[in-house]
């Protein structure tokens, strides 16, 4: 297969970027999207040009490193999947494909298609944990957890921290990411003691990092490779309201 690629090139955070055209030729349909970029990079190298910088690591949809916007869609057309799980058989031969980084105000561009997502780490640092010092845990089966709650917590916990939700959101909101973590931990009895402070602090930092508000467009859910349900955003809102109420009641 052959493709015309229009790729965002930007030498560093401060420079201005632009779309540059490249051709990708003789690509097998069983090539993954990132492997196609590897091949292109090999060709660029052979011609003495600088390869395109893009991030990836596990290449199987679990580490959350890869982060490309393809034809305007975060992670490309094959939802639910991270872009590293996208195969060229999903495209038409001779298609023109535009490749850009995730565009979110809170994720500055490092180079070409590579972004800085440390803002997401800072949201977790604000309270996305259960304080359980090593060595102090009770016997694991001493607190049974209803299977339904455990399964639901797992669904929320599956978030890979890629940031596609924010990239897809017209407001650049990281609500789905934050909601997934808040829901995961508040669904479990172990997460209960910090339930109030956790949600208040995480939301506060999320706002301070410059992420936008949620206006219920659900673009996030549509692109999420981990299939995190937007219903967790409703849960986040309830958790937040409950926590604010308790806080104002002086608890």
């Amino acid at each position, binding site marked *: 297969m052959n493709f015309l690629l229009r790729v965002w090139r930007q030498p560093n955070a401060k420079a201005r970027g632009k779309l540059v055209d490249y051709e990708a030729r003789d690509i097998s349909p069983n090539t993954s999207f990132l492997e196609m970029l590897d091949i292109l990079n090999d060709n660029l190298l052979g011609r003495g040009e600088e390869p395109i910088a893009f991030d990836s690591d596990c290449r199987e949809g679990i580490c959350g490193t890869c982060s490309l916007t393809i034809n305007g869609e975060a992670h490309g057309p094959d939802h639910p*999947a991270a872009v590293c799980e996208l195969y060229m058989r999903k495209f038409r031969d001779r298609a023109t494909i535009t490749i850009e980084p995730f565009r979110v105000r809170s994720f500055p561009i490092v180079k070409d298609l590579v972004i800085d997502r440390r803002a997401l780490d800072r949201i977790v640092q604000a309270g996305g944990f259960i304080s359980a010092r090593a060595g102090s845990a009770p016997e694991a089966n001493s607190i049974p957890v209803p299977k339904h709650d455990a399964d639901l917590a797992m669904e929320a916990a599956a978030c890979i921290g890629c940031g596609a939700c924010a990239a897809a959101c017209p407001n650049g909101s990281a609500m789905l990411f934050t909601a997934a973590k808040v829901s995961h931990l508040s669904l*479990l009895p172990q997460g209960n003691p910090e339930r109030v402070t956790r949600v208040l602090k995480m939301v506060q930092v999320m706002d301070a990092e410059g992420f936008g508000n949620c206006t219920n467009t659900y673009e996030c859910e549509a692109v999420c490779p981990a299939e995190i349900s937007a219903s967790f955003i409703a849960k986040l809102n309830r958790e937040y309201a409950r926590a604010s109420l308790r806080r104002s009641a002086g608890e």
Partner: protein
Amino acid sequence: MIGSLDAKIPHGPLDQKWRSHRDHSRLVSPNNRRKFEIIVVGSGLAGGSAAATLGELGYRVRCFCFQDSPRRAHSIAAQGGINAAKNYQNDGDSLYRLFHDTIKGGDFRSREANVYRLAEVSNQIIDQCVEQGVPFAREYGGLLANRSFGGAQVSRTFYARGQTGQQLLLGCYQALCRQIAAGTVQMFPHTEMLDLVIVDGNAKGIITRSLRSGKIHKHTGDAVVLATGGYGNVFYLSTNARGCNVTATYRAYKKGALFANPSFTQIHPTCIPQSGEHQSKLTLMSESLRNDGRVWVPKRKEDRSKPPGQISETERDYYLERKYPSYGNLAPRDISSRAAKEVCDEGRGVGPGGRGVYLDFADAIKRLGENVIRERYGNLFEVYEKITGEDAYKVPMRIYPAVHYTMGGLWVDYNLMSNVPGLFVIGEANFSDHGANRLGASALMQGLADGYFILPYTLPNYLAGQMNKRPSADSPEFQKAESEVRARIKKMLDIDGKRSLDSIHRELGLLLWDKCGMSRHAKGLREALQKLSELREAFWREVRVPGNDEDFNQSLERAGRVADFLEFADLMCTDALARNESCGAHFREEHQTPEGEALRDDEKHAAVFAWEFQGDGQLASPKLHREPLHFETVHLTQRSYK
């Protein structure tokens, strides 16, 4: 410089060694802990748990990883599960059995004392993870569920769907985040360690390069902990993430740390077969699938291209069930992988190139219903479909072995300290617990055991004697290490060749897969050593590393890793050649039983092979130190899974 290798195994009965060792180790008092700076390289299960726990204890920790966030360490990709000797299933499991299975699975090439301790702390790990909010699978009554894994006849594996590594790592990452917020841990993501600094014989710091800005930094510390994972990517194609590398441990080796059993590589039996030449990685299908899937190939060569549905029961060879009736499809990894290679070598392999065997769920679906299978393995089936375009509920999966895990690693004593005082090595980066073959679901256990429950006890024992001994970053040792790092970077950027890094790396991988992979022989290993030196020359002459060093430069990152792999491969082949026996994953064709199983030589080789670097000019002749292995509790037998 190194005398005889002392593993420092405590005296006393096996089941009391760890307790008595803890009781007699030196401590650092709470108000002194903040005076110590600990460098932890790696944020996977091992490094993340160690950094978080040391932070909780009050040490000042600096933690490094090359990914843009600690949450992305390669541990995230582990699928199947984590072992513990809880015996929740009441099926006869015990601490002793977990210990025994691990020693036997490792083909009697690991230390009894270490493995026993691992089994001992396994239960605490599950407690700890549950408390952190790890959403393990549960039964309807709300209690924890288990599944079984290869090499065991009990159900002792805890799991979180097919994402156990992800959930354990997130637990660990969250504990780390808590410490980052508390100010005890300072995190350096996107930062690569390029050298170890030794001052007065003790590990006292590292040299790093920021992958984002290109800046080189000197970090001083009172101890250095390496938790940098495995080096399976030396084969180019493996189930590891793209970034996994040997750089940190290899650099430490060049500074005097011993590298143990470098040739012990686990080839995992259940991976998706390679489909094309540009493939950049191989994807694992969790071994847990072998609980319900049956492995087969056609009995006759001629049937290999027939659609599987047209091959009748009597024309199929369920070769694992046939050869190993008591373990069947759950035979250990090394044995299952070799069996797959054997049937493919006989021309009975299926799929493109004849390099594949079927993993068939038809019986399980009939017995349990598709829903149950979907619940157990749904996401694995989805992954399979994405990559191959096939629906494994309808047609059997095709699988083939792939490089997966490296049992070898830096040599450590019972305290997880290398022969270089102050240099601790944990997780997959050390060699300690898995002998010549690792059992499924035990790497996660080991990484977390090391980080949460072992290092926090053994590190203070060293630190107690190191008060106020942290050198300044201006000391000559640091200056020298820094200028060496800079010189090496410059040398790589100056190569001005035309060849791409990947092409050299691929060639290296093929060579090793061929000569130092699932089976090895002396002649092939000697050929490999010859070829390796040619390949290294080609690298330093022909490769092209564009860009500069003061910038985000992914080609430069990779070049450094490939250069280290090229040297390290020598050490692997040298080790494989020196180990004149077969054991576990190390299968020397010269040494096999009439049935084709690994034939050990316990008299000569019941030992750890630990290698000492002798200088760049003599890459292929490092010095061998042997640590004899003493078995006081288990009997050495030929492994049988029949």
